[in-house]
């Protein structure tokens, strides 16, 4: 099996998994909207929770995976780790955008404000921006070896930065409590809602794996093409 065939197999599996999970996602919507009871205090707005929380989970999972793959890359220097780290970062940026758009839509009716500088919101916003920078940096570097090393450095720095930002905002908040902010306690969900949420978490996690596999395969194919081009020129 040539590397090209292997990449194509990955791409096929990724597409299959992604397709299946997109169908499952539609199922989650149907279940959330029709077969899950409406939350007493928040009303229909709470439905967005079934998309928002799992998307946030997938985004943070993606960035954590990027950070871990970055460490592994600097250690083992296997280019496939870099391709996978970049794929995960890209998917993470996509899920972050889902999280950052669904969040305010829910926040407006429930908190009364689109945005608040809460610890979780702030750290996810900055980690999102950092990974946008990560993608831009990758785009600006042409040498694949250099690109891999530099992105790994940013990936690791990002992993360490997150707790610092979280703690910063936490300190900021405790010193300046915001009276407008209604911070909801974590509700102990009734069974029906919990099931919908858990199913959605599962679907989003597998959707992440599906996207990741596809992007990884594309990254491998791109590397192969670049190598062939380099050979053809020399």
């Amino acid at each position, binding site marked *: 099996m040539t590397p090209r065939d292997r990449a194509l197999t990955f791409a096929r599996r990724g597409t299959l998994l992604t397709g299946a999970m997109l169908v499952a996602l539609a199922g989650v919507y149907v279940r959330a909207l029709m077969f899950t009871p409406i939350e007493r205090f928040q009303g229909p707005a709470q439905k967005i929770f079934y998309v928002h929380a799992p998307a946030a989970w997938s985004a943070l999972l993606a960035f954590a995976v990027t950070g871990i793959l970055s460490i592994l890359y*600097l250690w083992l220097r296997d280019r496939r780790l870099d391709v996978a780290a970049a794929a995960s970062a890209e998917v993470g940026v996509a899920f972050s955008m889902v999280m950052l758009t669904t969040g305010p839509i829910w926040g407006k009716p429930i908190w009364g404000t689109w945005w608040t500088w809460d610890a979780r919101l*702030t750290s996810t916003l*900055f*980690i999102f*921006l*950092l990974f*946008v*920078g990560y993608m*831009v*940096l990758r785009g*600006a*570097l042409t040498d694949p070896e*250099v690109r891999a*090393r*530099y992105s*790994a*450095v*940013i990936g*690791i*720095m*990002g992993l*360490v*930065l997150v707790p*610092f*930002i979280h*703690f*910063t*905002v936490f*300190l*900021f908040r405790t*010193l300046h409590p915001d009276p407008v902010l209604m911070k909801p306690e974590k509700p102990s969900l009734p069974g029906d809602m919990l099931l919908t949420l858990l199913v959605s978490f599962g679907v989003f996690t597998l959707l992440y794996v599906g996207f990741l596999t596809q992007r990884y395969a594309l990254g491998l194919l791109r590397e192969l093409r670049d190598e062939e081009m380099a050979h053809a020129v020399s």
Partner: protein
Amino acid sequence: MADLLRAAAAIALKDLAVEWRTKTALVSSLAFAVLVLAVLFFARDPTAVGAVDVAPGALWVTFTFAAMIGLNRAFLMERDNRALDGILLAPIPRTALFLGKVAANLVFVAAVEVVSVPLFVLFYDVPLWRRLPELTLVIGTATFAFVVVGTLLSSMVVRTRFSELMLPLLLLPFLVPPVVGAVQVTARVLAGRPLSEALGWLRLLLAFDIVFFVLSTILFTATLDE
């Protein structure tokens, strides 16, 4: 260890000598700092917000922005004529290169700060002189934080086409903890509160300094070609 520090000092002195001969970056960073201080003074409603309320934020925006336009200089000058390869050929540990660059950048940013602070007092009319030791402590710890991270990032972004654009994009997320912390401590110092009130923030700054200094020093060698 002594060899490492000697090599680092040699690199820092070389950088500072080059900068001292042209003064391009220093003069432009200084002029930029004065401009930011002056413009931010007017970036408020004077009937609603007193100058002293925006002063800590203005000071730190000035410091970080002025530093940011100067930080790329350290590695930009090594890019021309591939001077970096020459340094890498020298029989010195690669960590010395990073430490030297950090030291030179610290001196550079400190020079900008030493000039900005009197102007800050002048423009914003803040009672600062009695609290100078505390303020120096804050400025020192926070400046160290963003110079260390900025030096590492600038060593990478100079390899890209839009390095002046790329550095702020990558560096600003890392500035959140040090700058927020520095502004909080500065605000308390300027308000005449005891430093013990801001102990949590000082701990955060110190932890950031230590963690990112160690991490950046380790990661720097990974950014260099084998």
